[in-house]
């Protein structure tokens, strides 16, 4: 069943197969959640938007070509996120402190032993990265510095800082997957 295409899953879902819905969750909840979190920078809002996204997208699957289901999901998610962002603009009390990027990304490491263990392992893996990449990641994620500040500190263009960040994150993920394989 996991090898089924989106088309096949949608056909099964329309026929009343609840396992198909679970597989659609498994397949798309993480990328949609990350996308929504990137837009909204608040994990509560991202979860609300994710729920509405699935409901609205699945209600109108009859009008969607099954091979474009992923794109349809992200389009619905984008609209939901933009609706919430407009609400935030109208209501300043709901506006988040965007300067603190990690403030609303979810429960912190101190909230759970499992996450505490995860961050400990991640810091060990971080030591395996080239120093330039490691420093950018540490300054950005653990110290909350802006890319421009990091670039100024390292004496390099912002794009270089961004490249180090991107490459470093990819490498960390690869190491993490190897570690948990």
């Amino acid at each position: 069943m996991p090898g089924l295409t989106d088309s096949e899953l949608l056909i099964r879902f329309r026929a009343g197969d609840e396992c198909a819905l679970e597989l659609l969750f498994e397949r798309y909840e993480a990328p949609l959640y990350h996308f929504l979190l990137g837009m909204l920078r608040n994990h509560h809002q991202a979860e609300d938007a994710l729920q509405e996204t699935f409901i609205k997208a699945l209600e109108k699957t009859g009008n969607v070509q099954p091979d474009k289901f992923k794109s349809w999901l992200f389009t619905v998610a984008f609209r939901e996120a933009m609706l919430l962002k407009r609400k935030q603009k109208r209501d300043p009390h709901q506006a988040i402190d965007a300067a603190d990027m990690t403030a609303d990304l979810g429960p912190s490491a101190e909230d759970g032993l499992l996450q505490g263990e995860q961050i400990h392992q991640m810091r060990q893996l971080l030591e395996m990265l080239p120093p330039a990449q490691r420093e950018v990641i540490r300054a950005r994620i653990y110290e909350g510095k802006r890319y421009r500040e990091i670039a100024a500190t390292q004496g390099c263009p912002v794009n270089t800082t961004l490249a180090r960040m991107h490459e470093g994150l990819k490498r960390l993920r690869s190491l993490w997957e190897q570690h948990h394989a």
Partner: protein
Amino acid sequence: MPDDRQDIPDDRLNYDALLYAGNELDRDAAELFEERLATDQAARDALANAMQLTLLVAGRPTKPDPQYREEVRSRFSHPSWWGRFWKPRIRRGPALAWVAVGGIAASVAIACWPIQPLPSPVTEPVVIEVVERLPEPTIEAVVPIAVPTEQVADATPIPTPMGDMTSDAAAMWEEMSNSDHLQRVQEEELRRRAARDRVRRPDTNTGAGRVLGSTRGER
């Protein structure tokens, strides 16, 4: 090392995604990136990827609270058997269900309809027996429709059906509960009265108590 290489389009997209996620794009650049997010799946994937990596390294949950699944499931869960009749399903209208409900209701109504019991064959001969014993009055016996002119002119009292019947027969007629017989008697009575009225219609020209029969007899 990536430090020295030139930006290629994919990298630019990834960098913009990192800056956008960190809210470090200026307003115009952010709006441009959002326009791209509206339609460009590559930009969406880049943003999702940037956030996933950031969450992973920051030790934050990379998956949402699974509670949202319950909410979604409840919207699309298949209702109980009676709920199927009320809640329209995806791409299935409730028409078929309504047709079935209508058919069942009609069947139940027909099955439970109170039907008048047919007269049992035991009671029928009893009625017939009673009728046979009674002197069935005929039209001629009850009311002489064609009354002789002389008799009418003499204003002879018209014999009534009760006058020819015995008191026993009258009592039996009275006790009879058969609606057919009662109706028949009623009809006979009406017919008798009509015949009497025809015979005794007053003469409107003279005001005398002439009767039709006498006029007809004079001709």
